[in-house]
């Protein structure tokens, strides 16, 4: 069997992804399958943000707002809050649509902004959405304010609920397993869309804007529309992820959509390798899994070493997170798994050296 044949490799990867939750379950326990579910949600977010930041080069620090819009849409339309219990296949797309709408809403006034200014405005936007969610409980109670919305309907299709126990071929699937497969399907879809867009006329236009917006515009790219498209696509993915999050968690509150979350998703994109889908996925996995490892590992480890807890694991987590970021930026500035383009960008190229020689030679003639 030839493993290097792409078809075989894909088959193997698919198989690995399918059995993964059971392996995790067997090795580390049920809780870690749940963490894998969250990892998938974050990967979706990171892939969405990658379109805005990685492809089009628009620094968005309020991206979590779209996640919030998707989550709250699901929560409001599928919970006792208004007594609405709309089915998932209506609410999820609706959440994506709203998020897309908000993406355009954010994009439109910021079209003329670049770099730092854009970052600041998007940051403000993210906060506005969160504060809205926090305060829309008076005079009319819509979001339930800081208490958030609970008892959200589980993700379900018809009578099949992803939160229930099911059995197939004698194998028991619990809630976290079923959510894993559901999220995996959505993540693959999002990755597929990203990949196809990247290598297309639209993707090229995004990258041209990232490289030089003025030149892109002068070459006939309608930069306004193409940038709005990037915002809209990114936001849509965020909205889908948000809806899934709400259904999975069964509870949403404004707390889940803080600036820290936006930064976390951005870190996944930057750390993994901006513009490269594999890199972004890797970044998402690492940034969800490693902190959990610390959360569970740091306490017992300190107990064993010093006989007591010296540093609170929670603060240690942030410390290590910061340290990891600095190290990666020092040693792998293009990210852990950069796109070939970014890699070439940040590495000296022998052709440049050759060229320099040519110039010297030319002038000597």
């Amino acid at each position, binding site marked *: 069997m030839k493993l290097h044949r792409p078809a075989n490799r894909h088959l193997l990867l698919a198989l690995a992804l399918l059995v993964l939750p059971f392996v995790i379950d067997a090795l580390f326990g049920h809780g870690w399958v749940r963490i894998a579910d969250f990892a998938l949600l974050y990967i979706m977010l990171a892939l969405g943000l990658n379109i805005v930041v990685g492809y089009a080069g628009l620094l968005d620090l309020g991206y979590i707002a779209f996640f919030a819009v998707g989550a709250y849409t699901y929560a409001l339309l599928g919970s006792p809050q208004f007594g609405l219990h709309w089915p998932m296949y209506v609410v999820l797309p609706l959440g994506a649509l709203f998020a897309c709408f908000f993406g355009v809403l954010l994009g439109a006034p910021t079209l003329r902004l670049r770099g730092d200014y854009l970052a600041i405005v998007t940051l403000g936007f993210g906060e506005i959405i969160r504060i809205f969610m926090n305060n829309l409980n008076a005079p009319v109670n819509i979001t339930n304010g800081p208490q958030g919305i609970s008892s959200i309907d589980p993700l379900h299709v018809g009578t099949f609920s992803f939160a229930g126990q099911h059995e197939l071929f004698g194998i028991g699937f619990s809630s976290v397993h079923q959510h894993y497969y559901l999220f995996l399907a959505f993540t693959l879809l999002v990755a597929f869309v990203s990949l196809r*867009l990247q290598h297309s*006329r639209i993707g090229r236009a995004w990258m*041209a804007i990232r490289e030089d917006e*003025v030149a*892109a*515009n002068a070459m*006939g790219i309608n930069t306004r529309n193409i940038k709005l498209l990037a915002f809209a696509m990114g936001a849509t993915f965020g909205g889908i992820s948000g809806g899934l999050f709400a259904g999975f968690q069964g509870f949403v509150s404004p707390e889940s959509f803080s600036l820290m979350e936006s930064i976390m998703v951005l870190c996944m994109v930057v750390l993994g390798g901006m513009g490269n889908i594999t890199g972004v996925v890797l970044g998402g996995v690492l940034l969800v899994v490693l902190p959990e490892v610390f959360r569970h590992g740091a306490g017992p480890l300190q107990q064993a070493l010093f006989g007591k807890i010296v540093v609170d694991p929670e603060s240690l987590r942030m410390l290590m997170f910061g340290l990891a970021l600095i190290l990666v930026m020092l040693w792998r500035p293009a990210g852990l798994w950069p796109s070939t383009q970014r890699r070439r960008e940040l590495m000296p*190229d022998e052709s*440049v050296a050759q060229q320099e020689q040519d110039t010297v030679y030319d002038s000597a003639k």
Partner: protein
Amino acid sequence: MTQPNDMLLNLAGVCKHFGGLAALSGVSLHIKRGEIYGLIGPNGAGKTTLFNVITGLYQLDEGTFNFDGSDYACCKPHVLAQAGIARTFQNIRLFANMSALENVMVGRHLRTRSGIWGALTRNRAARVEEQAIEERAHELLRYVGIHRPSNTLAKNLSYGEQRRLEIARALATEPKLLALDEPAAGMNATETESLKELMKKIRASGITVLLIEHDVKLIMGLCDRVAVLDYGKKIAEGVPEQVRNDAAVIAAYLGTDSPRPHAGEGQGVRVSE
């Protein structure tokens, strides 16, 4: 109005101010189809500003701007690119971290149409179009004389190649008017010579060329007509020979003490005010 008109670009009384500075004051230009039209002038004369106006990067303050029979005052750059004006930049503005091929492919953007649906499904139309884009881009790279591997990053090309890549990218938009802002700057004699041949080839293919250049020899040997800008005003226009001997032009370049006349009228040399 579809009657064939031999004027491609008509500018009349174009003004552009930056605060108190009049970068262009009352410039009129009329460029015929199929000619190579030179635009010269001392540093800061407003040549690049004029380019920015006709490619939509700057909006003109006063005057009229007619291209190919339609009015284009205050249009966005992509509208003018669509209309058929393509340009290069004085300080090269390539998509530095995209390959040479991709740079040219971006130029095909406005003449192609596949969108999200095409990208996602890769349906027949999208595949055919994508392939055509790539083929055309390869063709244009060869046309301008870039023989490197097409996946070489733009920023890794030599200076002369980068200038030619900008031309290839501009040509990819299928322009009627190609505006080149100092394409020979920084090139050595051999490179300049091949650039000259390239410009002749482009003109022969039916594209009108508007050329800003400091290299007088190049201008004289290539252009059908030349206009001279100085302090935002057109001080002379005509065939290269006339312009070279024009008193106002000599004064502008050499800065003589003689009062700078808006005169120097010979036949064919127009003076704008």
